[in-house]
């Protein structure tokens, strides 16, 4: 029952995606889109996601888009910092590897955290294993925002997840 509901939801999302691709729309696009979306949705929800579906609903999706805009405020200053490092003739880097234990529990949150770390200049996620995240940073100071939990709080707020109900 849950699988069927997932199939319907995914097919609607895929149909919208198809309509975006086929933008100057005509009637045959609507039909073909529906057929393909239904088929791809069927394959995904009954075959690919049988073991574990990505827990990604409409609310989280909106949160992810918000998170991308939120990221910009994090990325741009750090990017300028890295630009200064690269352009500096003496190349002042002090690479370190730090291992960080995350408090986030869900798969979606952890993956979002890993990719946020990778996209934030100065830190790069090297490994994610359970709640242990191995981060390579250009200099120890780049990891400050991560270590004091600011990044995690932002992700939780954007995705609209309260840690307690997990």
């Amino acid at each position, binding site marked *: 029952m849950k699988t069927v509901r997932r199939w319907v939801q995914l097919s609607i999302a895929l149909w919208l*995606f198809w309509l*975006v*691709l086929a*933008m*100057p729309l005509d009637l045959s696009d609507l039909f073909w889109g529906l057929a393909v979306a239904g088929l791809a949705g069927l394959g995904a929800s009954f075959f690919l996601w049988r073991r574990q579906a990505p827990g990604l609903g409409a609310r989280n999706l909106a949160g992810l888009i918000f998170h*991308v805009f939120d990221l910009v405020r994090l*990325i741009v200053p750090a*990017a300028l910092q*890295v*630009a200064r490092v*690269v*352009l500096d003739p003496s*190349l002042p*880097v*002090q*690479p*370190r*590897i730090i291992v960080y234990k995350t408090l986030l529990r869900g798969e979606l949150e952890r993956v979002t955290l*890993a*990719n946020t770390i*990778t*996209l*934030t*200049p*100065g830190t*790069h*996620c*090297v*490994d*994610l294993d359970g709640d242990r995240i*191995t981060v*390579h940073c*250009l200099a120890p100071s780049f990891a400050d925002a991560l270590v004091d939990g600011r990044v995690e709080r932002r992700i939780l707020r954007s995705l609209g997840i309260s840690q307690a109900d997990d």
Partner: protein
Amino acid sequence: MLAAVHALIVSFLVIAGAAFFFIGTLGLLRFPDFYTRVHAVTKCDALGAGLVLLGLAIWSGPDGEGVRIMALIALLLLSSPTAGHALARAAFRTGLQPWTREDGDESD
């Protein structure tokens, strides 16, 4: 007037994106080891390509092309860090040692 502002915003975004690409290239060539290079490249590519494509999406307006470029940006923001992470993890798990300043020179 409005057209001029529009063109100005687009040009600014595209040039800023190109500048980030340049920084990424510089990082790829200058940094001492693989891990620091992957740093420079993932960010600057995602940011550079994102800015250029955002400028192009604004330029072509909210018709079919603009929407498709936004889809391209979404793919890029997802694929670039994932690819960078996958590559770094492969190197890390197979035992490629990161360079540190104490070593004095490259460790490969």
